[in-house]
């Protein structure tokens, strides 16, 4: 046992301390709060690097430090810290990206009156996320997980004076809590079955082979293995946090928070937590793979959800006008890719993509933040334009991020990680549908990112705000440059020719292949990227939008394009046929699922089905919270009905007492028929 692992607690503790400092700092103690937060992140980064170094010394080992927390009934609840290459890498990523975002925030939030509180919340968020990463106990992980949710609530609703922000914060918290409900249930079940929540515990942890063997062979009603049920329940938590279909709805709305928050949530931390969780418990999720008789495997479900999310997110992103919202749907789509990779069995590819995505998506969000900051909080892409020359640094770095996300071949990291996912999907022997969904997503991604770049940076400014924009200060551009370097360089850690990342993560030597092995698939995806880029350029780049009020170029495009892609009407139909129907289907599915799964137990819970269902519909309606509010209104209506029974009349109360007694007595008497 490596004694130094016990010091892992310092990594989350440092930002937590900074959060405490920010909490007690006076409102004008801006330098104190920000300084503490940044210093703490820097410290966490240094410690993470040490930890990674330690982990890489023996990649196949899981270094743990477990301790007894308290006694519960006959057993004891134990917590623990874990170090292996997976969470070593995550620690470094979270603290590095977090640090850059903190620095960026110095500039972005400069004018905000609640500057100290913002850094307090940011630090709390980072601490919670790091706690998730270093946990060797699902219970500790869950505590961090909930704190991540709480901090995200505080951050998304940071600009509380905007009603949309407050609503979005509530929606994010509650939607993810619905997923967490499944997670918690899975935890309790797991504890009930195995008596432990430690991941690795010298052979007795829940991820170690003999416990997994027990779980997989314990068959419930319907031929379901216990590990399948538990795995699916835990996956619910990941679905909520990682914005997977059908709980993705909170993610686009979460854009109401300040942009650094969007970057933090959508790039490095909160959404990554779900993918990380699934990668962490991958042995548990894969435990039922050997059971041919099982009606469903966890990984199959994960792959399916991932594929649907990847395609749906990309399709919706095509039709958005809000700069951050396009990026948000893009995040949904990319997270779908990661889940897809997990589902087809390659958690390494998922983590690879998670790491590269963290960099280029943080880059894109911070770039967007730079644009929004410069354009006085204008974020409708129809009102921007022409920012290429005044904002050269932002434009250059944003382009790098865009190409990385699109998967422009060979140079950019996104290409390699996406290739790894597609490659894994092509080798999956259950179905090729995820592969096709992934390939279709590639085209759409290239298309909408081209559209975004053209609309924002090219052409002439289409509003006074855009016309007066100028470059952001260095405190904001320097993080962009650092991230851009990462977005390029990180790809080379996992190329087929030098699979360093893969071999470190799995702890086994992975043979190097020629770059061009499996060239057919690679060629296909390059063609698809080119198609997407070309289509985007043809529609948006060739003829730049002239005024903010002009129709979308898709509508005004030349007849040749009509022949190629179909008229705008046809695109709308396509949208309705894919996204629209998908969404309607999702709503219906959610209703049915919830009626049967939850509502089956107690009739009341069917309301939850409508709840998630119409939250889902809310996306399509475009109204930010129309659906959410109407359904929570309906639940409140039920509450009001109960509340009306409280008439204030004492006679009514006494009568209720008597009647309740009679009913309960009958229950006890007739139940006890002798």
């Amino acid at each position, binding site marked *: 046992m490596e004694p130094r692992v016990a010091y892992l607690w310092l990594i989350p503790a440092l930002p937590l301390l900074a959060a405490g400092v920010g909490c007690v700092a006076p409102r004008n103690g801006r330098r104190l709060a920000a300084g503490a937060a940044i210093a703490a992140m820097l410290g966490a980064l240094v410690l993470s690097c040490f930890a990674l170094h330690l982990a890489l010394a023996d990649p196949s080992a899981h270094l743990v430090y477990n301790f007894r927390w308290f006694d519960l009934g006959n057993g004891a609840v134990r917590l623990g810290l874990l170090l292996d290459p997976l969470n070593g890498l995550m620690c470094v990523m979270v603290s590095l990206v977090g640090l850059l975002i903190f620095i960026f925030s110095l500039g972005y939030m400069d004018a905000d009156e609640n500057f100290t509180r913002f850094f307090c919340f940011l630090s709390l968020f980072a601490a919670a996320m790091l706690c998730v990463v270093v946990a060797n106990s699902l219970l500790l992980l869950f505590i961090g997980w909930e*704190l991540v949710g709480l901090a995200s609530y505080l951050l998304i609703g940071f600009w*509380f004076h905007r009603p949309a922000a407050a609503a979005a914060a509530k929606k994010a918290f509650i939607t993810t809590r619905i997923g967490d409900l499944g997670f918690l249930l899975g935890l309790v079940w797991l504890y009930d079955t195995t008596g432990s929540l430690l991941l690795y515990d010298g052979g007795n942890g829940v991820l170690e082979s003999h416990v997994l063997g027990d779980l997989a062979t314990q068959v419930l009603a319907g031929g379901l293995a216990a590990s399948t049920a538990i795995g699916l329940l835990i996956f619910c938590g990941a679905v909520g946090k990682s914005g997977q279909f059908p709980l993705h709805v909170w993610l686009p709305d979460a854009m109401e928070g300040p942009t650094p928050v969007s970057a933090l949530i959508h790039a490095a931390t909160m959404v990554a937590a779900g993918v990380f969780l699934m990668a962490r418990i991958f042995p548990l999720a894969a435990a039922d793979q050997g059971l041919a008789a099982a009606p469903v495997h966890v990984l199959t479900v994960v792959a399916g959800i991932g594929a649907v999310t990847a395609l749906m997110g990309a399709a919706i992103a095509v039709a958005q006008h809000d700069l951050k919202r396009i990026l948000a749907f893009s995040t949904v789509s990319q997270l779908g890719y990661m889940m897809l990779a997990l589902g087809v069995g390659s958690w390494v590819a998922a983590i690879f993509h998670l790491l590269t995505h963290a960099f280029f998506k943080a880059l894109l969000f911070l770039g967007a933040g730079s644009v929004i900051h410069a354009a006085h909080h204008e974020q409708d892409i129809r009102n921007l334009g022409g920012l290429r020359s005044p904002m050269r640094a932002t434009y250059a770095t944003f382009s790098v991020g865009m190409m990385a996300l699109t998967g422009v071949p060979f140079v950019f990291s996104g290409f390699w990680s996406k290739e790894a996912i597609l490659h894994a999907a092509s080798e999956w022997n259950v179905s090729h549908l995820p592969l096709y969904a992934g390939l279709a997503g590639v085209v759409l991604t290239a298309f909408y990112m081209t559209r975004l770049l053209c609309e924002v940076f090219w052409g002439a400014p289409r509003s006074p705000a855009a016309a007066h924009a100028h470059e952001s200060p260095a405190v904001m551009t320097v993080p962009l440059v650092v991230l851009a370097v990462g977005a390029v360089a990180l790809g080379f850690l996992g190329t087929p020719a030098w699979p360093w990342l893969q071999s470190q993560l799995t702890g086994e030597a992975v043979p190097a292949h020629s770059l061009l092995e499996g060239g057919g698939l690679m060629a296909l995806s390059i063609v698809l990227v080119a198609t997407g880029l070309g289509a985007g350029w043809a529609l948006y780049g060739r003829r730049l939008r002239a005024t903010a009020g002009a129709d979308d170029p898709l509508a005004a495009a030349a007849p040749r394009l009509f022949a190629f892609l179909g008229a705008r009407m046809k695109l709308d139909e396509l949208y309705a046929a894919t996204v629209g129907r998908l969404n309607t289907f999702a709503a219906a599915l959610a209703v049915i699922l919830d009626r049967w799964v939850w509502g089956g137990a107690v009739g009341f819970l069917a309301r939850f089905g409508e709840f998630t269902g119409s939250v889902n519909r809310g996306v399509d309606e475009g109204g930010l919270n129309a659906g959410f509010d109407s359904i929570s209104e309906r639940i409140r209506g039920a509450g009001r009905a109960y509340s009306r029974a409280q008439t204030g009349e004492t006679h009514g109360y006494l009568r209720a007492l008597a009647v309740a007694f009679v009913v309960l007595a009958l229950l006890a008497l007739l139940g006890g028929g002798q």
Partner: protein
Amino acid sequence: MNPDYAGLFLALKPETALVVGAVAVLGLDLSVFRRHAAAERLRLALWVASLAVLTAGVNVWLGPRGPAFGGVLMLDHLAVATRLGVLVLTLLTLGVARGAAVPHQPAEYVAVVLFAATGLMLMAAAQQLLLVFLSLELASLSLYVLAGFDRARPESAEAALKYFLFGGMASAFLLFGFSLIYGVTGSIELPRIAAQVSLQGADPLLMVALVMVLVAFGFKVAAAPFHLWAPDVYQGAPTPSAALIASASKLAGFTLFTRLLWPGFHAAVGNVAAPTFGPGWLPTVAVVSAASLLLGNLAALAQSSLRRLLAYSAIAHAGALLLGVMAAGRSGPAPLFYYASTYGLAAVGAFGVISAMERGGRCEYITDLAGLHRRSPLLAGCLAVFILSLAGIPPLAGFFGKFTVFAAALRLGGVAGPAGWLAILAIALSTVALYYYLIVLKQALIAAPAADARPIRVPRTTALTLVAAAGLIVWFGLDPAQLLGLF
């Protein structure tokens, strides 16, 4: 037989301390402090009372263990822990009263609080039906008086009358139930009743008697459908009284009835899982639990009054605590005690914040909390801890209360087993609960204060009380072994 008066005195030393304290408060007030202003008299009375509570606490801690006075009292771990819990909650209530509006007869008010605590302490240890009935009545009568203490407000009188009539009827049911138990088993001592019940099995009259006991139980802990008094009383009663009713009274009630149901009627449990309910009291408790969970959580959503919201949330918590009662037979009372006592801390704290706010104006509706973080960061911070603990957000104590109780409930036979579906219901409804707790938090932490809102000055004693309650919640949350390890 020569009665063991010395043993009785030793066992009842803490109660004696409280009664002596109450008499001292009254006597000093009538003689020495008669000429002082009301606020001053309240302060002195509170000091004397706190001293009495501390003395009682020391005596509980050092006092004897095991059965006392021929088994009339049972001073086991649960009883000692509950007595200490009641004393801590009473002390916090006294601290809350320091910051509340001065009652018109401060000494009498404080004395009745001490009498109520005496009754609650006895409830925790009583093991004989007669003593159970008397201690329950002592506590209830004191609480009725406390609820109606504010003569200036008609709401207070109305709340007390409703509380009294509802409680009176519940105790009539209880007495009738006890008479039937006495008739069927021929004894009023719990151990002998238990032996007799296991001999006889579930007799229909016994079942009826148990349901009657359940009525009184439901009344005491505000479980649906016997909760109807609770929202009105929480709203109408003076704030420290509401704090005591919501916390210490609930804790003692759960301890008393767990003792009554498990060791006393273990043989008549029944089975909640079987498709056709077997004879027994467990299914009825399950029904009451489910009703409380549903009704409490849903009705809380519709509230605009802060106190009523707390009342409905208390009903929902009672539902979850009933799960702990059901599980106590298998897992012991530790999860139940942990949940009930930490819930009590959060409830006292929330009412303490309300009472501190009332000094600076109104605190009737949830919207009156607006801008609390500007008006008093201390109150806002403490309130956040209390509300988050009630909502069950880790790492606060509220989360571990839920966790241990649900885990214990699930241990009754897994997710599909008895009480499993109740645990699932409770977990699902905690998502709903989050919604209304967030509404409170949003007002307190985020919303801007009203234009005419002034900063709130919190008296030092109250501030200390609230910080202590919040600190205990955090401490027990981080280190649950402190409480769970008592058993």
